[in-house]
């Protein structure tokens, strides 16, 4: 099977889009390669499960490949792609709520054991930092898992994508007030789960400090 080529930076985004629009799958794959991590990260924080995140992110790419001819260049490619991503997430959310109606925190938690062995081949110096990072990521995932999927999506759009409340409200189809409340709720949840107390630091907080110094 033909795998993705390494996206050469010399080829501009516009050129890749034009080629992809004329049914050049290689060009589309190169285009996908440029944004795949952002989309995957959003999907992972939304689903809290690697397998679901992969399925969802690939669904985004599939939809965008099918709708590529509708891209007229009025906005940036990523803005257009983000719209598709949000729609895919909302559809996923509806399907999930239909399947698991009444289950408020129906998400699989981030599974630390599912990390591939390849990821663990790190130097001894980095292993502690990496381990702490994973714990932190798990804590964040746990905090987000206590939110509804809409609140989670709104928080991700605000914090990860740095969208304005008006943009979020328009994209998700809610009021600006609801968007604000969702973000506030998510921040409070994060604050509770990460349990950061500046005045009385514990051993865990010392590790947090280490992470911050490492960064």
């Amino acid at each position, binding site marked *: 099977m033909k795998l993705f080529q390494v996206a050469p930076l010399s080829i501009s985004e516009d050129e890749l889009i034009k080629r992809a629009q004329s049914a050049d*799958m290689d060009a589309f794959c190169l285009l996908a390669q440029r944004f*795949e991590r952002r989309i995957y990260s959003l999907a992972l924080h939304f689903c809290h499960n690697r397998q679901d995140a992969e399925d969802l992110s690939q669904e985004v790419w599939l939809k965008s490949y099918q709708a590529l001819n509708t891209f007229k260049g009025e906005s940036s490619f990523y803005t257009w792609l983000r719209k598709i991503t949000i729609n895919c997430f909302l559809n996923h959310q509806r399907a999930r709520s239909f399947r698991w109606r009444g289950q408020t925190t129906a998400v699989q938690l981030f599974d630390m054991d599912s990390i591939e062995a390849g990821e663990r081949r790190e130097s001894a110096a980095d292993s502690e930092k990496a381990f702490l990072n994973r714990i*932190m990521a798990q*804590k*964040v995932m746990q905090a987000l898992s206590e939110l509804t999927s809409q609140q989670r999506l709104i928080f991700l759009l605000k914090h990860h994508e740095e969208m304005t409340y008006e943009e979020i409200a328009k994209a998700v189809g809610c009021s600006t007030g609801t968007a604000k409340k969702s973000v506030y709720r998510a921040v409070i949840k994060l604050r509770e789960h990460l349990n*950061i107390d*500046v005045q009385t630091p514990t051993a865990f907080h010392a590790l947090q400090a280490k992470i911050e110094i490492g960064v």
Partner: protein
Amino acid sequence: MHNCKANRETLIALALNPSDQTQSLPAEIETCATCRTEYAALRNSLRLAGQAKQSALPAESFWPGYHARLRQRLEAASQSAVPSFAFEEQHLRTRLGNLFTSSVRVPVPVAAGLLLFLLISFAFALNSRRPIKTPQPIVVTKTVEVRVPQATIRERVVTRVVYRERDRRQTAGVKANAIAARRNEPAETPFSLIGFKPANEVKLTIIKGSYRDEK
């Protein structure tokens, strides 16, 4: 009076907006130790959530497999975009198969009601097929003679006498002349067929139509 709880939303808004983080805090928050601590905790929480976004991403070894799977899905999607006749047929078969194998969830009371209705209607249908035995009415034959009035032809002779007025003078003269003539002339012989001999040949001309030539 300063209320720490009331300021929480402001603190979250400040912690979320990176451009405002560089600016100094409002005096009300700056002077309150609790608010300052809370603000620092919120900022740290959000910072750690941002770091978790990076650390949650899988290692580089994950991406080739991801690309291969995405490419496979894209190829499958592009093939299905142009459906052939065989594909349509297979699709139809699958749909028919699904039609026969799929089931619909019905609540038990509704199912019981439907079953009862079917049984009753089946029983009615069976009863309607049997011949209905109705008691035959007693027929009594009786002969009654009825005189039928026959039409009689009645002839009636109507005689009408019509009188006509004549001029008295003329009639008187005419009568006198007639009397005189009768006295002078011999009496006329009455008209009879004595001595009439019919011709040997009879010539008949039959005129059929209005045309002169037609005979």
